């Protein structure tokens, strides 16, 4: 997208046009921070953390924010979601503190950490967004919103016990043999297109693999072929005796 935009600018007579081809992912990868907009912070399904002290938080904070002062952030690690793709946004009175918090959470392994420059509360108020007085929440309540076709862990376990739902394990044969969910049938992803006739059309289909990657590919294919299908976008480990672990 950026080279094309740059091409247009050049065509329109801009003399000095450059492309930063590493883009936003490269910027983040090199340890620099990204900024979220007020509109995103106000409406998106995020973990919002106010890094200021309790007195400042009580005087006015963004609704939905959790109050965790920067100096106690490290010991609050366990409060954060287990999903490493959970979007986390930090704000503080001083942007340097937010930058520090972004670094800490990124080191923990979170992939989508940004900051919101709250000293620009002007910007927040200009949008007509609310500032709330009193104490902020003390606990993080974040529930992952599922993408198209994703089944929740609970629904997946229910599907295993339902006769009306066919669970298909799209991992390889050897992976399946080493342990699989009770009742799941094995059709490896690469042979799925040729083995569609083994999949009943009158049942609801749920596909899974080890991490969700192959599951999603299988989901897209089956959906295209007209199946009522969902997939498990989570990690799993199965033992030969049928015991299993599921986590996101």
């Amino acid at each position, binding site marked *: *997208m*950026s*080279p*094309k*935009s*740059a*091409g*247009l*600018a*050049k065509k*329109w*007579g*801009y*003399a*000095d*046009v*450059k*492309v*930063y*081809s*590493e*883009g*936003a*992912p*490269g*910027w*983040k990868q*090199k340890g*620099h*921070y*990204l*900024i*979220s*907009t007020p*509109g*995103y912070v106000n409406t*998106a399904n995020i973990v919002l953390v106010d890094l200021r002290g309790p007195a400042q938080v009580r005087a006015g904070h963004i609704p939905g924010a959790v109050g965790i002062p920067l100096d106690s952030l490290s010991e609050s690690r366990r409060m954060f979601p287990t999903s490493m793709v959970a*979007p986390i946004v930090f704000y503080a009175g001083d942007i340097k503190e937010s930058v520090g918090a972004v670094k800490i959470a990124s080191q923990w392994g979170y992939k*989508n950490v*940004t900051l919101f420059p709250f000293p620009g509360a002007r910007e927040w108020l200009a949008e007509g967004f609310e500032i709330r007085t009193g104490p902020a929440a003390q606990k993080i309540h974040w529930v992952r919103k599922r993408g198209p076709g994703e089944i929740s862990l609970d629904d997946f376990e229910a599907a295993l016990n339902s006769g009306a739902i066919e669970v298909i394990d*799209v*991992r*390889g044969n050897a*992976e399946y043999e080493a342990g699989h969910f009770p009742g799941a049938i094995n059709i*490896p*992803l*690469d042979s*799925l*297109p*040729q083995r569609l006739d083994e999949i009943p059309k009158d049942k609801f289909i749920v596909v899974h*693999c*080890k991490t969700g*990657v*192959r599951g*999603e*590919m299988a989901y*897209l*294919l089956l959906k*295209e072929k007209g199946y009522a299908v969902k997939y498990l976008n989570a990690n799993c480990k199965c033992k030969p005796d049928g015991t299993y672990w599921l986590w996101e």
Partner: protein
Amino acid sequence: MIKTKKRFMLSLWAAVMFIVSLTLAGGPFSAIPAWAEAEAMYEAKGKVKGVSNKARTISLSVKEKGPMIFKFNDQTQFIHADSARDFKKGEGALIKYKMAGPDMVAVSIKKAISRIPQGVSVITTPEVAKLVKKGPQAGNYRLIDSRPARRYSEGHIPTALSVPFMQLKKKGMELLPPKGKTLIFYCGGPT
């Protein structure tokens, strides 16, 4: 009688060696059997939907065809990429493939990369970081995020303005800042 047999064996040996040498030189008896070479090669162009190194498959969403699943192997050639790992969801790819029984086996997988237009130069992360630190005024630049507005709202580089490519194409240069400053465009990486 024995001598004749020996001579025959020798000439047979020479013939075999001749064939082997041709094979090594990639001549008419190359490692790929003729029937395989004659096999039809197909092409599919689309967006990467998923890559599994474990199952050695890559799936593309192809216009008017929907999702297609390809196998890759040690013979698969990667173009503009070192391995299947370099293909991320949503990136464009061109796959040349053959049919092996019911399987679609990728002969080559080419990553779609946009060429930098003539007269446009590339700027590196340290250079951008230096400018961002100075700010748009002192640095005499404008940084423009070409991604869709939603991506910008989630997280953008400090000092960047949002001008999605699709809007720029539709509405024209009035969306860009006035001339006279360095314009730096970025998006979601080299796709």
